[in-house]
């Protein structure tokens, strides 16, 4: 089996339009959740979100591209450009046939659906723009990334709700590890902050109206975010041979299904995924210094996740750190695991643990070290990233310092 390393990273999210800015926000414990700026906000009961502000696609794409790129594709391309630039890779020659893209998104071009439903239902028009379908399809971002960088190997999109990015990165990891490809661009994107996208979530009554406070006793729900993160996963010897800077090694991955409930989390399913990632990476539990939690800020997720971590790690659960950066960038749904992997890379490379902000009151059912409110300097060698999706689909990645 091949070793798999990360040689590039890129992002745009509510905290910043790039990785250095996101790291800075993580270190400062800054909150990117603000009052929403979207059409028909007055008809929404949820008025806040982790929205990307100052986004001006005209400065990044030409008019023809914008007519083809939904916002989730625009975010992906921006993050992909940053990641590929950092990696220093060039896909002109033979490598293009040994490189592909696997991305996660829960819902693809939601803004395109929303805008065009308005056109036909609200405005009563009988004609829509010719590119509606290629713009909204879930694989649009993966396909445009393949075209932008000439990636001709296996490419596809994974949709597992809030675990989409982790499932996608797990697939990319498997493909490089097995020798199927040399390089994969992977991560995920979501852009659901529009009237229809928020209205749908309101219906479930799990959204907070004021803040995302994971693990805090007074938490009252999740806050949606938007954005993307893309990584370059590369075969270790390939990266070494070209003297690439290695950000971290991906060492383990596991997926499980709860097979129990369409929305309620399940401790056994979560525990099996965490334990599976350790097994896959041949890791001992006590090597893990930090876990980037799924940590949605809902009553159900946070206590179930803490119980799962306590079960898997035993006494070591009290020594490791676990934080939820959703408190800062919101829940990016299908893109969330990708943005959260940045906190894992920051922990390994910079020795800085991103905090769980908005933490106000200890919850006896979440009695772990959740790195409350302030980032912490700590040397860690192995980290995990959890994602537990609606539908009971769980995906956990393990990374090691190189």
């Amino acid at each position, binding site marked *: 089996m091949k070793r798999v390393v990360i040689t590039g990273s890129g992002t745009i999210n509510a905290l910043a339009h790039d990785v250095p800015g996101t790291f800075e926000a993580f270190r400062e414990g800054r909150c990117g959740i603000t009052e929403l700026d979207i059409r028909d906000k007055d008809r929404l009961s949820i008025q806040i979100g982790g929205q990307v502000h100052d986004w001006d696609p005209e400065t990044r794409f030409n008019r023809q591209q914008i007519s083809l790129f939904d916002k989730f594709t625009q975010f992906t391309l921006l993050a992909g450009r940053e990641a590929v630039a950092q990696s220093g890779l060039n896909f002109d020659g033979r490598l293009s046939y040994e490189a592909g893209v696997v991305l996660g998104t829960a819902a693809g071009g939601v803004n395109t659906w929303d805008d065009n439903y308005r056109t036909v239902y609200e405005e009563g028009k009988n004609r829509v723009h010719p590119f509606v379908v290629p713009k909204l399809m879930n694989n649009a971002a993966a396909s445009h990334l393949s075209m932008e960088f000439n990636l001709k190997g296996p490419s596809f999109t994974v949709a597992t709700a809030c675990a989409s990015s982790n499932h996608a990165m797990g697939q990319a990891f498997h493909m490089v590890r097995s020798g199927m490809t040399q390089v994969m661009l992977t991560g995920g994107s979501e852009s659901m902050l529009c009237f229809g996208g928020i209205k749908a979530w309101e219906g*479930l*009554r*799990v959204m907070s109206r004021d803040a995302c406070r994971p693990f805090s006793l007074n*938490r009252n*729900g999740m806050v949606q975010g938007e954005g993307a993160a893309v990584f370059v996963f590369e075969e270790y010897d390939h990266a070494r041979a070209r003297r690439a800077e290695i950000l971290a090694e991906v060492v383990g991955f596991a997926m499980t299904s709860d097979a129990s409930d369409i929305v309620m989390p399940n401790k056994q399913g979560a525990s099996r995924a965490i334990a599976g990632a350790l097994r896959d990476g041949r890791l001992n539990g006590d090597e893990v210094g930090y876990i980037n939690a799924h940590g949605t800020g809902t009553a*159900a997720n946070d206590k179930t996740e803490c119980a799962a971590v306590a079960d898997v790690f035993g006494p070591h659960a009290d020594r490791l750190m676990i934080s939820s950066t959703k408190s800062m960038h919101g829940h990016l749904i299908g893109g969330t695991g990708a943005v959260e992997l940045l906190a894992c890379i920051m922990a390994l490379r910079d020795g800085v643990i991103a905090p769980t902000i908005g933490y106000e009151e200890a919850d006896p059912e979440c009695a772990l070290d959740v790195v409350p409110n302030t980032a912490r300097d700590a040397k860690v060698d192995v980290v995990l990233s959890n994602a537990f999706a609606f539908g009971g689909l769980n995906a956990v990645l393990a990374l090691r310092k190189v």
Partner: protein
Amino acid sequence: MTGTGHGMSDIQDKVIRIIAEQALLDVSDVTPGSTLEELGIDSLGLVEAIFAIEETFDISVPFNANEPAATRFDISTVGSISAAIEDLVAQRVA
């Protein structure tokens, strides 16, 4: 009857019908003293019942599934739900 078109017992009858339908029970099996747990209504069932209540009475119910106890909407029994809805309907009219 109030001027809203919904009298007190009228509201309770409608709530019982909504909850009975959600619990897949006969209306006669649901009483004001029944708890949702006794009726076998889980968290998803509750959210669906609240949606049906909002649609029926044209009100907005301040219910967050993350803090069911913290909201002003008392869901402990069918009777307490009916009483809370009576208040909300009255507020809508006021």
